[in-house]
Each structure stands twice: as C-alpha cells, then as structure tokens.
C-alpha cells in the first residue's frame, strides 16, 4: 500500500535546524611537555638577555712540591666561568571575531584567547623539540629504537660526568619510537621483561603531559613534532636539570580591541615572551631512529 494522504508529516512543520550535540569533541593537537623538563626561570628585568652561567672547576695535574719550594700560580689555579645567553623573544598571534559572530555565534573573544594561549604553548614546545638536533652527541639506532639505545645515551651523559646522576634522565620520544620500545618488550623472551620495572611503559597510560612510563633510569615522554634527519626522528635523552634552560613570562598577555572602520570586529592579540636554550651540551644526547 502506498503513502496515506493528508497525514501531518514532519516536513509540514517549521522545525529548528543546526541544533548542537551536548558534547563538542576536543581538537586533536599535541599536549605541551617542555616546561616540566627544563630548568625554568622568570623573565629578566629591564633587559632582554639573560646569562645562564656554567660554574667551572679547577682542573689540571698537580705535582708534589718539595720542602721549602714556593707554589707558583698556574693554569690549574685559574677560575673562569662560562655562560650561555638567552635572548627573550616574543611569539604572537592575532585573530578577529566579527560582531555577527559575537552577537549570534557560539565563539567569543575569550574562547579565542584561550585557543591562542594553547597555540603559543605548542610553539614553545616546538622550539624545545627543535633543540634536540643541536645536541652534539647522538645515538643512531640500527633501524628501530631499542632499549639498548637509551642505555648508550645514558652512558654518554654519565661518561661526561654530568652531575646529579641519582636522577632519572628524561626521554622524549616520537610515537614511533615508543611503539618500537613496546614491541621490543613484547617480542623479547629476556627475563628482564618479566620484571614489572621494565613493563611500566606497557602497563601505564599516557598522562596529560604525555608522560608514558619509566624504564630503570629513565622517565619517558612521547609526543609529535620532532625534527627529522635522513629518515630518522631526532628524539633525545637528557638530564632534566642541566641540559636545557629557559625563561618564561608568567602567562601570555592578551589585548582585545574593538575595530570599527576596519571591518566591525573584535581583534584579539596574544603574545608570550620566552626563550629556551641548550645549557649544557654534554647533559643530553640526540636519539635517532626510524620515522
């Protein structure tokens, strides 16, 4: 039988359109990891540069001095500090929200400012990740990343007499590198991998700052946006206290201006002052493995 005539159907009435679901999915963007993994300080006052000082030790060969002989001044007795200079720079982003959007839409200037703050934070993170390929020492995996590569990097850092060796080293991997570590654990029949200490990265769940677990001697983080070199991701193993240093503003600054003749919109500009530098080259090792 066909459709019955004269029934009041859904299309006969004026219905609301564009009704939104209760939940909006979040944007798929990476989390920020840098601030926890470097030595962070406030911005300098009345100058845009800051010296991150490296203390020196007296070094040299000392020989015994016979009785009644004087001690001469020598190179071993000269004390000289060095420093790495950071120059504070600003990153900035500008957006505009039309008066129509403000009046009828779902986004206001405050929401845009929040998005801008997140973008600025990710830009800081990208700067941090880009410093990895500047580290002089590197460990290159034969193909994919292995646990052994992490220990080779640890060896290089410790052999350089990096202080505070009682602390776990930080490892910032690309997701592919983390996958390869997990696969190594799953596929290995070595008894070490029945030890729960080795299984943390398999059992753990990534936290908001992308901390994914530990291996003995390492705290492991995983993120995206690493530099690449010759088909390898440039990841890093480093000492969280002594490898990188940074100066940061307390928070991003936001400026909101109403624009008239330019187009009737509200301008939202956010900026952030900071710098991150490689403080001690010997406290970090680049870790190159297949992309």
């Amino acid at each position, binding site marked *: 039988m066909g459709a019955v005539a004269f029934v009041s159907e859904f299309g006969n009435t004026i219905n609301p359109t564009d009704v939104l679901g209760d939940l909006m999915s979040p944007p798929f963007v990476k989390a920020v990891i840098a601030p926890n993994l470097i030595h962070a300080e406030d911005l300098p006052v009345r100058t845009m540069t800051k010296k991150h000082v490296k203390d020196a030790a007296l070094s040299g060969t000392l020989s015994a001095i016979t009785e009644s002989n004087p001690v001469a001044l020598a190179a071993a007795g000269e004390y000289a500090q060095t420093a*790495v200079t950071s120059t504070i720079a600003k990153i900035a982003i500008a957006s505009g929200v039309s008066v129509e959007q403000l009046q009828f839409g779902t986004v206001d200037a405050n929401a845009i400012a929040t998005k801008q703050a997140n973008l600025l934070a990710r830009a800081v993170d990208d700067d941090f990740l880009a410093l990895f390929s500047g580290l002089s*020492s*590197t*460990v290159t995996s034969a193909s994919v990343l292995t646990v052994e590569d992490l220990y080779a990097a640890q*060896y290089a850092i410790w052999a350089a007499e990096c202080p505070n060796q009682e602390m776990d080293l930080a490892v910032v991997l690309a997701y592919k590198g983390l996958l390869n570590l997990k696969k190594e654990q799953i596929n290995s029949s070595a008894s070490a991998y029945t030890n729960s200490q080795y299984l943390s990265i398999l059992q753990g769940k990534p936290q908001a700052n992308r901390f994914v677990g530990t291996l003995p001697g390492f705290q492991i983080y995983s993120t995206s946006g690493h530099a690449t070199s*010759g088909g390898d991701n440039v990841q890093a193993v480093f000492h969280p206290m002594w490898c990188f240093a940074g100066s940061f503003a307390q928070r991003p600054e936001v400026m909101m201006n109403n624009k008239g003749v330019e187009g009737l919109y509200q301008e939202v500009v956010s900026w952030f002052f900071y710098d991150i530098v*490689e403080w001690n*080259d010997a406290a970090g090792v680049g870790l190159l493995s297949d992309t």
Partner: protein
Amino acid sequence: MTSQRYNPKEIVFKTQVPPTRDETLTYLRGFRPPSTAYVLFEKQEIKVLGDGVRDFGTGLFTLNVEHRPEQITKVNQYLGKGFKVLHYDNFPGIHKTDSVAMRKARLYGGENQKNPWEELKASLDASIKNNPHWHVEMSEKDNQIAAAEAKAAEMERRLAEMTEKLAKKDKAGRGKAESGEGGGEEAKG
C-alpha cells in the same frame, strides 16, 4: 636564492654553502626544508655507538626563526660549537611577494619598520663568508671563472685571427679578380 619546498627523496638539497663533509650530503638527500623561516647548520657530531665507542661525523641542525628573529646569540652559540651555516631561507620581509611573510615583517618591524630578520641575515652572511670552506669553494669557483674567461679570450683571439686571415684572403681574391678582369679588358682593348 630559490626556495626548494618540495625535494624528492633522491635529490640532494642544494645549500648556499656546500657541506664540509660528504656524510652531510647523505642527510641533504631528500631533505625537505621547513616552509617557515629557518637556518640550516652542518653540525659536528659525536656518534655514540652501542659498545660505548665514539665516532666523529656530521649531521644537520635546523634552527627555526619564524616567530623569533632575535636569535643571533643562539646562532653564535652553535657556531661556537663548530657548526657551520649551510643555508637560510623564508625570512619575512616587507618586500616579499608572500602576503603572510610581508605582514609578519610589518608586525615585528614596529613603527620604524626595522625588520629584525634583516639583522639576522646580515650576521648569517658574515658567518658564511668567514667559513674557510666557503672561501675554498669560492676560490675554486673564481678559478673556474678565470679559466673560462681565459678560454673565451683565447677563442676570441683565434676568431679575430681567422677573421683577419679571411679578410686578407678575401681582399687578395678580390684584387686578383679585379686584376684578372682588368687584364681581359685591356686585351680586348
């Protein structure tokens, strides 16, 4: 300087200054430069092998200067570690055809429109010219140019000689023909 945004895997990325070691060429093969402002360094690398042995080699290091042109202290820090500037590109400028780059240069230039990337560029150019390898490369190029110029001068000299010879031959032939024709007329007369 041309941007090489797309670089197929088999092509070696052409840098302003050639790398000091052939190993770097392997990393430049298929290297895809960032689409943002950057400085590319050839770095001196200590390669730590699995058994703790250390080997010396080179690698690449890209310094992003898109949002942060005031980075000359960083450039100096890396130069101090023995890195060499190989290339830089995509610096924002108010005369750029790309409107985004132009806008960025204006935003960072402030009221007096002093483009901070220009200062960085000047420092990088100075560093490139101080690179001994660049001098070797440039002197090789100068030698090549001098050899080409000498070859061109030799060719020109030979061309001039041949032209002169031809002109003489032509003149002699014409003189002969004229004297031959005159003789005929004389005989007829």
